[in-house]
């Protein structure tokens, strides 16, 4: 499955031969974007959180990697990686197909991913996906953010993420239905386009069975963190 997806991606990405040494209008490019690399200050142990993505490809077809997760007390608590073939299907939308691997919590879980990423009317950045895993497990995720330009370089970004699951998975502490909502507000300053430190606040809350599992573990089901971080890309 994974091999098949990867080879498919690479076949689609083989550069078309350009004319007699002339520049191609559609060069193979790579981009690595660390959207979030931040320290979240909580009442207890501080969290080191990352959210990053990268791609290689051309205008309409790309191979994507996405990763996000968090360290608490120098231990990886949550982490996932996605490998996706991304194809432009509309002027502002890419269809993203591939595989998601949850590294933490254990036991690890694998999912097939069907996602839609793009810019909606009124300039909302949207990333939504459906996940299908083993034993009939299913999940859905919606992420949305909006950039409020306070100045050309000072940018306020409200964002929201929610996760839903099709059935209970007690081993990983996820319950069916709406599992969690995370809402953040980050204020970044683009020293350069490629480099922007930020401060912000993040609110998370677990719902339903997921919240029950957390309570059983003695964990909080909702939390507010102040955060400081940096966004960078190249």
């Amino acid at each position, binding site marked *: 499955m994974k091999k098949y997806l990867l080879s498919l991606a690479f076949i689609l990405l083989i550069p078309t031969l350009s004319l007699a040494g002339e520049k191609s209008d559609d060069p193979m490019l790579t981009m690595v974007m660390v959207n979030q690399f931040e320290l979240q200050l909580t009442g207890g142990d501080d969290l080191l959180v990352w959210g990053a993505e990268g791609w290689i490809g051309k205008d309409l077809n790309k191979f994507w990697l996405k990763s996000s997760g968090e360290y608490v007390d120098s231990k990886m608590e949550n982490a996932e990686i996605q490998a996706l073939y991304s194809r432009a299907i509309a002027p502002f939308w890419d269809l993203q197909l591939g595989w998601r691997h949850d590294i933490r919590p254990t036991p690890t879980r694998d999912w097939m991913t069907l996602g839609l990423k793009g*810019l909606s009317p009124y300039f909302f950045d949207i990333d939504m996906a459906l996940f299908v895993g083993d034993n009939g497990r299913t999940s859905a995720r919606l992420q949305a953010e909006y950039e409020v330009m*306070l100045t050309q370089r000072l940018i306020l970004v409200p964002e929201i993420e929610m996760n839903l699951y099709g059935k209970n998975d007690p081993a990983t502490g996820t319950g069916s239905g709406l599992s969690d909502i995370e809402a953040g507000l980050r204020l970044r300053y683009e*020293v350069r386009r490629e480099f922007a430190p930020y401060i912000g606040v993040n609110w998370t809350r677990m719902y339903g069975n997921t919240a029950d599992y957390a309570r059983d573990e003695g964990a909080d089901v909702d939390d507010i963190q102040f955060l400081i971080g940096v966004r960078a890309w190249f």
Partner: protein
Amino acid sequence: MTRETYSSDIEKLFLPRRQFVKGVAMGGVLLGLGLAPWRSWAAADSVLSHPVLQGKNFNLKIAPQAVNYTGKKRFATAVNGSVPGPILRWREGDQVTLNVTNHLAESSSIHWHGMILPPGMDGVPDISFQGIAPGETFHYQFDVKQSGTFWYHSHSGFQEQTGLYGAIIIDPLEPEPFSYDRDYVVLLSDWSDEDPTDIYAKLKKMSGYYNFAERTAGDLARDIEQKGVARTWSDRSTWNKMRMSDRDLSDVTGSTYTFLMNGQTPAAGWTGLFKRGEKIRLRIINGSAMSFFDVRIPGLKMTVVAADGQNIEPVSVDEFRIGVAETYDVIVAPKDDRAYCLFAQALDRTGYARGTLTPDLALKADVPNFDPYPILTMQDMGMNMDMGNMAGGNGSMGNQSADMSQMKSTPDMSMSQTKMAGMSAAASGMKMLGAAGQGSQAEIVHVPTEFGPHVDARASDPQSRLDDPGVGLRNNGRRVLLYSDLYNLNPTVDQRDPEREIQLHLTGNMSRYMWSINGVKYADAEPLQFKYGERLRITFVNDTMMNHPMHLHGMWSELETGDGRRLPRKHTVIVQPGAKISYLVTADARGGWAFHCHLLYHMLGMFRKVIVS
């Protein structure tokens, strides 16, 4: 207001460097200029301190050249060690030979922009010839059959951005229909310390990378204060729904560009001398990769005598917009013993190129302030501003209403009436192209290839806007040159009406930074076929929100400004955002020719090969 002050303070705090790169005063080509061999050839007192080569035989050497425009040393692509390259001065009727040697590590070429010449001499790799391989010399040879102001530039890779451009002056056989005492070339260009390949990659990754003039929360607050919430919401909603920015004026801006006038930075400035009472001819050439300029000389009227090297009926203006690759010849007659600023502000107001006309090197001229930052309108999005009032009316009727309200000149009125006739003819299934000079009456058709992820917009109701000076120049209180002002001084050579019309849509996806014609990029496109000898109408429809300067090689583009007997001959025509425009072409040059947008980072996709057979 407070917010703005606050933000600019913050930006100073975090960003000590200025956004607008004015460059260094002693900038330019390093290492003793390397121009000595050519200096002695300079035409007497016609051009100040720029190498001029004249005659029939020319040896041109393309090589890297160390330059410093911003305080950092960079390598430019120079001709005979000079950026811009030497001015080439030819004579109409001569046969010229140009031996061009490539000392770069990559293939190169020189295209003689606007010249009517055999296809093999046009200098476009893969179309005219193979390009000039490193270490090789290509011998260009052709008869000079025209006169006026033209220019040359590389047609390979991004070499034009790095300095490979220069002026061509062709002296006519017949005396010119205007007189002047001084003759200066004013070549405008845009320099970046960045590698152009990086600029292109950045635009692909983040198309707004160089745009530091986006709408902010402050603009929104001001709009709400002035117009109220409801009106602001309705004004913004179209832009927001379409995910378009009304501040999207140019892809690459003064945040990376230093704008040059004859190779001089704004800090240094170019200087032209005159004596009071003299008439000065300025041959203004836009040799930029990506930048349009609005040119004026505060305190002086400019008489435009030629457009794209071709004499026109003189027209007196305060200001004109010059698209990439266009040229205008103007004559000015300073009456006072003072210095005048020759001010060329970039269309997006993020920088300027500057020169001084002065009787005395000690005199300085004040540099004017930038005009306000231009903001695109619904019209620039290809929507008919009057449509809202035409409830239930169809698109064509809406067209009609807009045309009537915008009309100023008689020729356009008659066009509008012909359009009525054209409409009824179309309704009865008749094919009708209309008379030469009147422009297109054809239905706007968006072909299926225009739909897909590679095209983000299609103009719903594009208007012919010959009398629109363009975004940023409307109602600015100055007399601005319009395309509808352009009439050939001489009768149209080929007075036939068009036999055939080709409608070409300029298309793209700004956020993906993809550009195409009819939604098909060059790499995927079949050549356009012109029939030898035919009289064609080319109609461009701009489905994007950018100006595109469209350049046809090998044949004149005779702009339909109203009078078919006096069509101005151009080689490069600006197609305004959301507008349509037509010109006539006589397909009198057999062979393969390039036909493309002259914005360097658009032309890789927005390009066609034309075959005349």
